[in-house]
């Protein structure tokens, strides 16, 4: 009969030290496209036509149109990169896209869109209160299950999320953070809202994955919603399709002010 405990002890440590040095585990992962608009050919719209979720749009008038990118809608499918004749869009390893303000996912040439953003809310003291222990209630509000696969990976021995004091909890009554995946389909709206309302205050919401940020690839069908902030107020937006485990950890640490936001106005710093 196998002695599993002995086997586990003998196997030794599998866990990365990241983010305190160590391997983030994403060395071969291609992230969001990097956009250098100064390379764009005049009048070219190849990437606009190749962008299924409508993350890339042409703004401005005829002749002086410029290309704008909303990472909140980007599903990292690389179609724009494949279509770009000028290398204005290139593959990158950028994935730490968690932001507090939805507008930070848009390149600077997009208008702010008339106040559909939730206001930046006071979060002073979150680090003091929750910096060392954060409990998450996850709700799948209509995902493709890619997000769940990566969320489940967070508790594998390599990432071992527990070591950062972050835990998934079964009951919303024990949760500090509501982590939403999926577009929020018509049939999940009431369950998502009920879960949020069952949480004690103070409470935070992380919209995880491009579907939860904007509806992603299926935004606007008869059954899909356009993201979590149509139903609950969102504190951190993390696009990605799906966000990889390191991106999820970065966004959770960003929420409790243990990590810095890396993306501002559509640019990675």
């Amino acid at each position, binding site marked *: 009969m196998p002695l*599993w405990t002995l086997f586990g002890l003998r196997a030794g440590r599998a866990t990365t030290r990241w983010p305190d040095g160590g391997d983030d585990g994403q060395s071969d992962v291609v992230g969001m496209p990097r956009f250098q608009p100064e390379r764009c050919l005049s009048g070219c719209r190849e990437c606009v036509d190749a962008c299924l979720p409508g993350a890339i749009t042409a703004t401005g008038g005829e002749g002086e149109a410029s290309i704008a990118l909303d990472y909140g809608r980007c599903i990292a499918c690389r179609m724009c990169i494949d279509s770009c004749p000028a290398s204005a869009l290139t593959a990158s390893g950028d994935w730490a896209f968690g932001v507090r303000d939805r507008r930070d996912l848009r390149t600077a040439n997009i208008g702010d869109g008339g106040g559909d953003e939730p206001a930046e809310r006071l979060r002073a003291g979150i680090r003091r209160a929750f910096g060392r222990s954060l409990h998450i*209630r996850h*709700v*799948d509000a209509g995902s493709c*299950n890619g997000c769940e*696969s990566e969320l489940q990976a967070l508790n594998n021995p390599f*990432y071992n999320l527990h070591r950062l004091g972050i835990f998934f909890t079964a009951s919303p009554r024990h949760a500090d953070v509501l982590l939403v995946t999926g577009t929020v389909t018509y*049939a999940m709206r009431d369950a998502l809202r009920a879960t949020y309302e069952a949480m004690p205050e103070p409470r935070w919401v992380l919209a995880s994955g491009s579907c939860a940020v904007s509806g992603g690839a299926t935004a606007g069908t008869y*059954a899909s*919603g356009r993201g979590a902030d149509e139903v609950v107020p969102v504190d951190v937006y993390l696009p990605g399709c799906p966000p990889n485990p390191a991106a999820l950890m970065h966004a959770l640490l960003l929420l409790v002010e243990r990590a810095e936001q890396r993306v501002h106005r559509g640019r990675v710093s």
Partner: protein
Amino acid sequence: MNGVTRRVLDPAGLGPACDALHEQHGRMQMAYALERDDGGLEVRYLAAPGSGQAFELWCCRPADGRLPTLTDRAPLLGWYEREMQDLFGLEFGGHPEPHRLVLHEGADPSVPPLRRAAPPGEALPFVRAPWTEPDIDGEDVQRLPFGPVRADVAESAQFVFYYLGEGILHYYPRLFFKHRGLEKRFEGTRPELGVVLAERVSGVGSLGHALAYCQAVEDACGCRVPEYAQWARTLLQELERIYNHLHYFAILADATTLKVGNAQGRLLEEDAKKINARVTGSRFLRNMLIPGGLRRALSGLDGLEDALDPLRRAVERYLAKLNATPSYRDRLIGTGVLTRRTAFDQGATGPVERASGLDRDLRRDHPYAAYESLPPEVTLAETGDADARAAIRRRELLASFTFVSRLLRAVPGGSLRAECRPEAGSGGLGWTEGPRGALYYAVHIGPDGQLGRVKIKSPSFSNWRVFPFTVHGTDMMDYAINEASFGLTIAGCDR
């Protein structure tokens, strides 16, 4: 369509055709509706006659929006008929469960959403309404609804148990909370962009969905995919099987409370996902396929065999250790028995049907990509319990490693992709045998050359239909283990 025989039937001819199919040991595979250019509806039934024979596609035009139900002959069609009722407004006379399936009670579309007249972009009007519950009554019968938000990180669905003490009298899974209207989303999209949607039907099935979709478009166009692309697609499909089956064993170890066994399974799954990223840049094997071939060559092939070898050995040790653990095997043996008859009638697919003795595997029976020259060995079990389902997956997982090594020994040269521009009005069928079973895409190109109707049949749609038959009359204690032994996803089913 290649490898598909087309027959036109009138409604009265459906029943006899179904009987004739069963007499030669064939089985229905799926059914879907589409709207013709003249505005009339047509229903298509996909039938798989006995092994070695081409698929048959039966085309039938309903009379006044009605067809006779075929559920009395082929119960597995029950869900397809209810789906067509919800999304196209068709009626199936004599259906034993004529209530809603894909759309929840209270969803009230002005026009059935997959009809062309449905206003584009209009959100479904919805006020939650009571659903049609199974008629179960009794003084001591308790009812336990669980979900749609469930413990831990799980996909959303509601499971309703009617139970007496520990005994489950009846089990009813309420699904389709996650219905996203994906099939409608394909409509009007360029065929080469449709693959991006196919990759997002079920994330852990991205490769299989992309492959079946591409093959359907290639079938519509009649193009020939270059040898290198066929080879790469096959390799990627086996990598998908490896990481999915590893996930399966981690979950099964968790359900049987083997904590270290669960951790080890998850760690091996992580290693497999890292290999996926090395080869494709994506942990889910995305962004590689396109109708006509591949978008780019595989990367990281140099030394890949050396990277896979330690994983393979670790997997062998892990599976042997699980198998030698009495507490684990005890919980699987005799749990959730699916009889061969029920597996056939209700339409089980993949490892689930093979564990109940049904000898089917699309890779061998209707070969595609490089499986034509490298047919896999199909393994079967007879007992139909959780132990048999795990045994099939264990053998498939090990076989996938062998398969990948064989493929890596002979990397063909050649181009990445062929021209693939399907003509307006054409149509095609594509299929793959993914880690969870048979996956079909039927693709119809509209008059403008963009995608028209796209039907997705995922393996979990089939196996969710089957699963409750193994739960009725069993114990609460076995439920989680039984569910884990099926290895279901919800996104693929709900679409």
